[in-house]
């Protein structure tokens, strides 16, 4: 990594202190976690600061600080469409369409997970097993992408192999999630959210300062070619179709993400939801806009680099004293850790509650599930660490694919909430057909070309909706009872 001079001492000191802080928070969370409801959704008692920050930090990941700015760095200003254009809708759209109902249902029906909700709505216990399995399949790469980023950071700032960072960060996150569950995850999210916020503002200010202001930087970038300032970007990778795909993917499709869905069940009441919408939206806007903006602004300052994923660490490293840069890097590490912890607790719930308690051993007590959850967290954590060490792709690619895979859950969620005729066989068929279409449109060259620059999640969603509609009409003999519909549609 020739762009960055390596001085590991400040990095180790700051990261060491950061780890101690996370361990202390994890310890206190452990002492307050006594039941399964506590472990998975804080017993529905999370306040707005914790809920809002946890929602934002779980959605924003290592990709926000490494993969996305790296991608934008090669596109130019148009690349900011990946998250900046639609970030203001990232929580208000889910809140309007599903959030208000989920807070009510979470309290009345004591749901803990997305599959709790879906298997109850569709009166199908088999749905738990299938969805639990699919969730784990997509959540492992999602966590893997974060942990690969941790390896990159350690490598950039210490010169140590990526595997050192991957293993060390993996052990820390597994440790506080295993002991503190959702409470540990959400409490550490607050500290991590503050660090991410500061890191984004700092990186943006440094860019402006190093480049002599916005006007100078934009003039220099425009002089190198107007393609850096307009669509479809310098490398042609951001046509309008891809912009639309990204806006939908990072806002509308978040409604299908189990780790974000669960946050609504943890909220104390509707007022918590409303305050969280404001807090999380402002936080995500500041972080999303500023960190993305750094990428085009940095191009006239930094020039060509060996790996564009390193652009934000390079800006921080060049523009700040070593200790301060290390604190900011802790902010980037925090982005990854806060995503892993939220996903890890949700993946654990998918295995222990959705697959084990509901499918394999229905007689298992809540206490035994809580006990089992701690071991499952460790096992999933080890698989994620191995995935990270294997590094099968770039952070942006893995993260986007995993996010898109789970986005298909949005179809049975929305149909189930707003259409009385939706049935369980249709929900199964929609998810499977949607995910198969996603894989085909990602991997098969002919289909890839046929979708005209849209992300594969768009045709996959269209296919899933059609399948849901047609199969529901064809399987009305499996329609759910009126009592269930009344509970789920909040009909008095």
């Amino acid at each position: 990594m020739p762009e960055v001079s390596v001085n590991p001492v400040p990095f180790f000191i700051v990261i060491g202190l950061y780890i101690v802080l996370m361990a202390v928070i994890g310890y206190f969370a452990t002492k307050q976690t006594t039941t399964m409801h506590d472990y998975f959704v804080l017993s529905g008692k999370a306040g707005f600061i914790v809920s809002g920050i946890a929602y934002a930090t779980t959605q924003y990941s290592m990709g926000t600080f490494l993969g996305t700015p790296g991608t934008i760095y090669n596109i130019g200003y148009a690349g900011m469409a990946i998250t900046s254009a639609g970030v203001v809708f990232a929580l208000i759209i889910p809140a309007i369409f599903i959030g208000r109902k989920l807070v009510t249902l979470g309290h009345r029906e004591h749901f803990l997970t997305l599959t709790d909700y879906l298997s109850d709505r569709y009166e199908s216990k088999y749905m738990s097993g299938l969805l639990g399995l699919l969730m784990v399949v997509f959540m492992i790469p999602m966590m893997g992408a974060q942990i690969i980023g941790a390896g990159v950071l350690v490598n950039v700032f210490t010169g140590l192999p990526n595997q050192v960072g991957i293993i060390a960060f993996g052990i820390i996150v597994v440790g506080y999630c295993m002991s503190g569950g959702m409470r540990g995850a959400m409490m550490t999210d607050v500290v991590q959210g503050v660090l991410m916020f500061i890191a984004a503002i700092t990186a943006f200010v440094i860019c402006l300062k190093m480049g002599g202001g916005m006007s100078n930087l934009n003039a220099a970038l425009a002089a190198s070619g107007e393609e850096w300032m307009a669509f479809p970007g310098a490398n042609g990778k951001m046509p309008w179709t891809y912009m639309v795909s990204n806006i939908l993917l990072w806002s509308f499709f978040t409604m299908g993400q189990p780790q974000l869905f669960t946050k609504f069940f943890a909220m104390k009441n509707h007022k918590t939801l409303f305050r969280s919408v404001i807090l999380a939206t402002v936080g995500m806007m500041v972080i999303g806009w500023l960190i993305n903006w750094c990428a085009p602004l940095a191009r006239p300052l930094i020039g060509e680099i060996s790996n564009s994923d390193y652009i934000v660490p390079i800006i921080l490293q060049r523009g700040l004293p070593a200790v301060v840069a290390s604190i900011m890097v802790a902010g980037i590490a925090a982005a990854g850790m806060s995503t892993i912890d939220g996903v890890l607790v949700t993946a654990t719930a998918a295995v222990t509650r959705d697959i084990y308690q509901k499918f394999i051993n229905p007689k298992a007590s809540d206490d035994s599930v809580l006990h089992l959850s701690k071991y499952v967290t460790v096992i999933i954590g080890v698989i994620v660490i191995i995935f990270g060490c294997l590094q099968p792709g770039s952070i942006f690619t893995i993260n986007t694919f995993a996010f898109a895979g789970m986005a298909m859950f949005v179809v049975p969620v929305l149909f189930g909430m707003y259409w009385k005729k939706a049935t369980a066989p249709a929900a199964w068929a929609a998810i499977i057909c949607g995910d198969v279409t996603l894989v085909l449109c990602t991997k098969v060259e002919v289909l890839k070309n046929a979708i005209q620059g849209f992300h594969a999640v768009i045709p996959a969603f269209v296919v899933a909706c059609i399948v849901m509609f047609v199969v529901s009409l064809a399987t009305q003999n499996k329609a759910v009872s009126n009592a269930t519909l009344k509970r789920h549609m909040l009909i008095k």
Partner: protein
Amino acid sequence: MKSHFNTVWGIIFTTLFVLIMLPLPWFCNYEYVPSIAGIPNYIIGWAVIAIVTLVLIFVWVKQCWNRPEYCEFDDEEEKKEEK
């Protein structure tokens, strides 16, 4: 929970959401049109939509605040505190 109030707000936010995705030059421009400090015009377009949406979120929250359907669990909390 289906009500005129929720439907209207759903339409307002969905309209803004769809608006920003339209291939209009204020949101997706294939030519460089500089605005303040040389920033491309579509960035300003996104910022305007973001600010308008944020203001409307504040208004929505304010209007939701005391609606009975959103106070159901407040009462539960208050009862517990009274005990």
